[in-house]
């Protein structure tokens, strides 16, 4: 409940709900307050009914553009499946893989998708635990990026298997021969970590969805209502339900943060545990976690900007949110620089012949275009732009920065996987990997799936956690202290 206001009777005292709080009579104060409301979603109070409408209107009206885009993306998904079947029938020879380079673009995509799957949970869980209030409207958009990116990340190890029809041999299932997967292998750690993280993320996203699904159920009729009724799990919004909901969310938030850190650490161990020069590095664990959050925050910014412009969510997504996300990305960029410096310095200083070969290739050899683009995108671009608030709140500029960061982080994985694998201790076995058509089709197709699943989700479920916005607006208020308006958050 809003706290009592010193300058005027509180709305509740006058019998008004919190969203009908009038502006103060003093003109100067009124101007200050409307300015604060413009800046801050949680102070720009509207009735829950209005807010629900702001969300549901764009969900119900689909433009022609939406359908055209959906058909194109569905075509991309079909292309992915066709190429995959073609690869299954003919064998992995249709890819560009060869003897030193046994992992390539599929593993790059796998690491990239896991990476962008990290920010979602981080934003909703960690920022929730740390009580960052600006995360309220953006948490679901981020969680859903996680869910779909992780489902693609879970598919890539299958696409990459030589005999995908035997994939279940990797799972610890009881069988008559008493054969179990080998827990010596980082791949089995990886599988365990990803399945844990994937199921936790789905549940976490779903728990926060329940009150909003119930709202959709109450605002729809017919078949759609029956659909929402199933997923709302009989939510009525009683006090006990809200209390349980809060507890569940807290348990998940605290529980999922260590899982998130462990997942990308374990993904990095796929590389760091190997003897391959350029992989065998102790800094890979934290370096990969930071890289994942870095590309993930960029992906969430891209998703938010696209949502805001295509679904008319200007009321929910304001400068404060982009400003916060951009600052987050800047911090992660600096942290990434620090870890990359560590990862680069040790082999450079050590100067082992094969490390020197790789470094020369990066600095002035065939890999230089990839390497310099990565450094520019991940280090220079964020460092030169994101210090300025003007750029942080300019959506076009921010979109470009986030896109470049994602390109840079994708290239980072390209450098780690196929480019590094091409060199090893015995120069006789060096080789160059070239991308082949089926790999390109599968890569583009999975990105199409990610977009398609995302845009369909936004039309079926509210992409803004409306109950979080209602809750935030009920908790936040302005209070006059002398001539100053103080932003207060009351205890929950």
């Amino acid at each position: 409940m809003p706290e009592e206001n010193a300058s005027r009777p509180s709305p509740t005292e006058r019998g008004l709900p919190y969203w009908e709080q009038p502006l103060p009579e003093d003109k100067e104060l009124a101007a200050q307050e409307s300015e604060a409301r413009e800046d801050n979603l949680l102070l720009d109070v509207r009735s829950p009914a209005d807010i629900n409408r702001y969300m549901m209107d764009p969900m119900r009206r689909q433009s022609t553009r939406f359908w055209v885009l959906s058909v194109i993306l569905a075509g991309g998904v079909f292309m992915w499946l066709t190429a995959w079947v073609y690869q299954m029938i003919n064998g992995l020879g249709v890819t560009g893989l060869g003897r030193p380079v046994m992992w390539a673009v599929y593993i790059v995509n796998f690491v990239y998708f896991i990476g962008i799957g990290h920010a979602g949970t981080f934003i909703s869980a960690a920022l929730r635990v740390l009580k960052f209030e600006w995360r309220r409207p953006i948490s679901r958009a981020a969680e859903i990026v996680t869910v779909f990116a992780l489902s693609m990340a879970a598919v890539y190890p299958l696409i990459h298997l030589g005999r995908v029809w035997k994939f279940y041999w990797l799972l610890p299932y009881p069988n008559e021969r008493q054969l179990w997967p080998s827990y010596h292998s980082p791949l089995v750690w990886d599988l365990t970590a990803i399945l844990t993280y994937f199921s936790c993320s789905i549940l976490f996203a779903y728990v926060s969805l329940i009150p909003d699904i119930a709202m959709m159920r109450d605002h729809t009729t017919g078949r759609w209502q029956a659909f929402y009724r199933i997923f709302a799990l009989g939510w009525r919004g009683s006090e006990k339900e809200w209390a349980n909901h809060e507890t569940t969310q807290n348990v998940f938030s605290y529980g999922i943060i260590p899982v998130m850190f462990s997942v990308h650490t374990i993904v990095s161990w796929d590389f760091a545990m190997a003897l391959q020069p350029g992989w065998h590095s102790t800094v890979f664990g934290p370096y990969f976690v930071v890289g994942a959050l870095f590309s993930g925050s960029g992906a969430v910014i891209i998703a938010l900007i696209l949502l805001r412009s295509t679904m008319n969510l200007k009321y929910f997504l304001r400068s404060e949110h982009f400003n916060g996300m951009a600052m987050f990305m800047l911090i992660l960029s600096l942290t990434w620089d620090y870890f990359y410096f560590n990862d680069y310095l040790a082999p450079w200083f050590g100067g082992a012949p094969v490390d020197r070969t790789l470094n020369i290739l990066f600095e002035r050899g065939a890999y230089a275009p990839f390497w310099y683009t990565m450094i520019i995108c991940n280090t220079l671009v964020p460092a030169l732009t994101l210090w300025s608030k003007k750029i942080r709140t300019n959506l076009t500029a921010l979109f470009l920065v986030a896109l470049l960061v994602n390109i840079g982080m994708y290239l980072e994985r390209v450098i780690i996987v196929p480019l590094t694998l091409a060199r090893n201790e015995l120069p006789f076995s060096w080789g160059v990997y070239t991308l082949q058509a089926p790999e390109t089709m599968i890569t583009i197709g999975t990105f199409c799936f990610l977009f398609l699943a995302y845009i369909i989700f936004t039309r079926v479920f509210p992409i803004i956690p409306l109950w979080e916005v209602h809750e935030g607006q009920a908790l936040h208020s302005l209070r006059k202290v002398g001539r100053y308006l103080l932003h207060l958050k009351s205890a929950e």
Partner: protein
Amino acid sequence: MALPVHKWTMVIDLDKCTGCGACVVACHAENNVPVQTEREITRLRAMHWIRIERYWMGAYPDVQARFLPVQCQQCGNAPCEPVCPVYATNHSPTENLNLQTYNRCVGTRYCQNNDPYKVRFFNFFDPAFEDSFTNQLNPDVTVRTAGVMEKCTFCVQRIRRAEEDALAQGAALKDGDVIPACVQTCPPGALAFGDLNDPNSQVAALLKEQDQRTFRLLENLGTDPAIYYLKGGPSHA
């Protein structure tokens, strides 16, 4: 862990190796290794369980060719083994062999990435043998399908055959009973194979008398290979 009953070991004398490639051909014939087309080889899919690596030493005109036959080093502490998620590649502690179970392999190809010698070969396509080759495939060796990894086995089928023969005759295995195809074929006799646990074997004797020339490939990685090389002197190839 049980002490190795046999410690199968190969000694390769680089002074004797002429780089003729007979071992490569013998291995293909013995182990049903598919012969790749030129196009596949340019795409890094060459498959030779044993290969002759040729390195050039010195600058023109004083150039020397050095030949290094490289096959699976049958490491005592193999990097390829622990990374397999399904135990398709595992260690035989009693024989010091790296075994590869073809029909357990799912094709993650992690073993190849972690293999510093790059001596593991992936079947990118189903193997294609021309008719004349199909008729001479070795019935003792599986023909591997697409999607599985394969590598030198020290001709494990010959080891088994020799063991069974010895058992049938009620005698113990003697040095020279087991001879892998490459050793059998090598014209200058650069390759020697035997049980290092047997102090009277040819390999044990070679390693003893030639210990000034002995080295193992990338020994600094701690892989404990079972293949010993005897360093070669100047060549005029």
